[in-house]
């Protein structure tokens, strides 16, 4: 049941230009929650998705964290996958060509532990067509700065974004960590570093305890909290950043249905991402697109941009 959207088809225009990254529709699937897309092909036409943000990819392959890696929490879940991935070369040489062939809008999510690692990774993307944009996971420890997360310090954020921009001409979208005192300062730093758009929010750092064993549930002790539980925090941060920073925002955090997505758009997201929601409903991305179109038709809204930030005035 593939549908055609866009100008001239009588449908409202829901295509998005996210800082140079062009999306057929404003609904992406979030990194780490959709594998490389293939895993969900039984359930959804992955070439119809606004953007498939693939699993966090590193320079070298990574085995990931010891299990348990996930735990359910009230209206949310914790994950500590530990960036298990086969490395950027495998992605570029094995997965990307297939995704490109299928016409998937691929957004590569990259992660590293030093500025150099990020830069080298970004440099590798040259000559590999089919990547629509790069999402920059900065919720990683900077091993050269005592393990402090890149995303918690404006100077490091600016540095890493600059380094990547120098190596890569694709749209660069830093993904902000919500575990900070001042999200606007971080967004500002990303902008100064040359970011083309912002993705927000990544997971909140949390943990769970197994009262039977009296030990933390996760092998890694701490994990990232995602799902509906974090939606209020995500909306608040996007609202704050939208009002201060002049970059398009890819918003997400707990989106489970169309009305959730609309809330994100109203506070300032130009496009949205679905993470944990995919696990509950693998067809969610499509359903949200349908919901948006219906809503816009009913409310006579010609283009999505008329809604972006309407609640943040």
């Amino acid at each position, binding site marked *: 049941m593939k549908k055609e959207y866009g100008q001239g088809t009588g449908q409202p225009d829901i295509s998005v230009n996210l800082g140079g990254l062009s999306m057929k529709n404003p609904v992406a699937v979030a990194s*780490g*929650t*959709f*594998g490389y897309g293939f*895993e*969900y092909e*039984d*359930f959804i036409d992955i070439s119809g998705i606004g953007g498939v943000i693939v*699993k966090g990819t590193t320079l070298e392959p990574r*085995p*990931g964290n*010891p*299990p*348990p*890696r*996930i*735990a*359910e929490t*009230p*209206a*949310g*879940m914790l*994950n500590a*996958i530990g960036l*298990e991935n086969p490395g950027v070369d495998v992605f570029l040489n094995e997965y990307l060509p297939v995704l490109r062939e299928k016409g998937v809008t691929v957004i590569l999510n990259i992660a590293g532990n030093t500025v150099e690692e990020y830069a080298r990774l970004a440099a590798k993307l040259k000559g590999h067509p089919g990547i629509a944009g790069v999402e920059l996971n900065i919720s990683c420890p900077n091993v050269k700065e005592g393990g402090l997360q890149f995303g918690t310090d404006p100077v490091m954020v600016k540095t890493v974004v600059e380094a990547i921009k120098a190596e890569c001409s694709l749209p660069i979208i830093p993904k902000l960590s919500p575990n900070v005192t001042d999200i606007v300062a971080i967004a500002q730093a990303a902008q100064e570093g040359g970011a083309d758009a912002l993705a927000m929010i990544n997971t909140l750092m949390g943990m769970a305890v197994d009262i039977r064993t009296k030990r933390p549930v996760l092998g890694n002790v701490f994990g990232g909290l995602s*799902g*509906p*539980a974090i939606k209020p925090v995500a909306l608040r941060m996007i609202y704050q950043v939208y009002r201060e920073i002049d970059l398009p925002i890819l918003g997400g955090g707990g989106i*489970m249905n169309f009305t959730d997505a609309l809330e994100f758009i109203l506070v300032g997201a130009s496009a949205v991402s679905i993470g*944990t929601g*995919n*696990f*509950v*409903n*693998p*067809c969610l991305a499509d359903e949200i697109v349908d919901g948006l179109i219906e809503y816009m038709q009913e409310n006579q809204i010609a283009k999505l941009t008329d809604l972006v930030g309407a609640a943040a005035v």
Partner: protein
Amino acid sequence: MSFLAKGRVLKNQQLADDLYELEFLAPQIALKCHPGKFMQIRVSEQDDPLLRRPLSLYDVDVDSGSISLLYKVVGQGTRIMTSFKPDDTIDVMGPLGNGFTMPNYPLNAILVGGGVGIAPLMYLARWLILLDCQVKVLYGANTAGELVASDRFSRLGVELEVATLDGSAGYHGPVTDLLKDQDPHEVDSFYTCGPEMMMAEVAEYVACNYLWGECSLEEHMACGVGACLGCARKLKPADVDYVKICKDGPVFNVQAVEFMMGR
């Protein structure tokens, strides 16, 4: 091929204290079922509990398009499931994972199940019988009342030996004690599901007797399709790679696994 579907509940019957059988119609899914695969069931439309619950195929009737699950109430999700009632529509996803390996010729199989671990072995037994195998089921539980699958196995026409820890039915002791009485020369393959301690003993028996066997493992899941990498486990501590129970399994060769005793 797997699907997201709305299943219509046919029955949701309490079989023992905390054991229920849920049967629902989902013909499209039923067509693609294979023993050892599992379903991901959405237990609530509310955001809590959030994730789907993985449950093995207990039985499937392709003709009627109905799928049965045997579940044990252990927490919030399974407790909510007990409120499903006939004609309710439930949100189901499946069949998922890699099931048991089917023999290419009729052979002699022993199925060893403990507790609710019996679930995937029922549908497996049905297939093996269809393939003209000799099927013997060693079925253990705490007490007679929990041997809820016995009658159904009997109706299937398999040879059934039961064991209970309290001696209230069959052999008095762990089901794996029944292995001693089996003639390894008359068995080709073992299939097992249940507590890991139990499966470990099956694995040892299989190894010692140069036999072949498969087991079904569990791990907490989010996606159920290999996308989230949440259900990772090293089959053996020395392994370099983590398998994903949902996608690489849940069925594995018993020899590949070092079982975890606490489970």
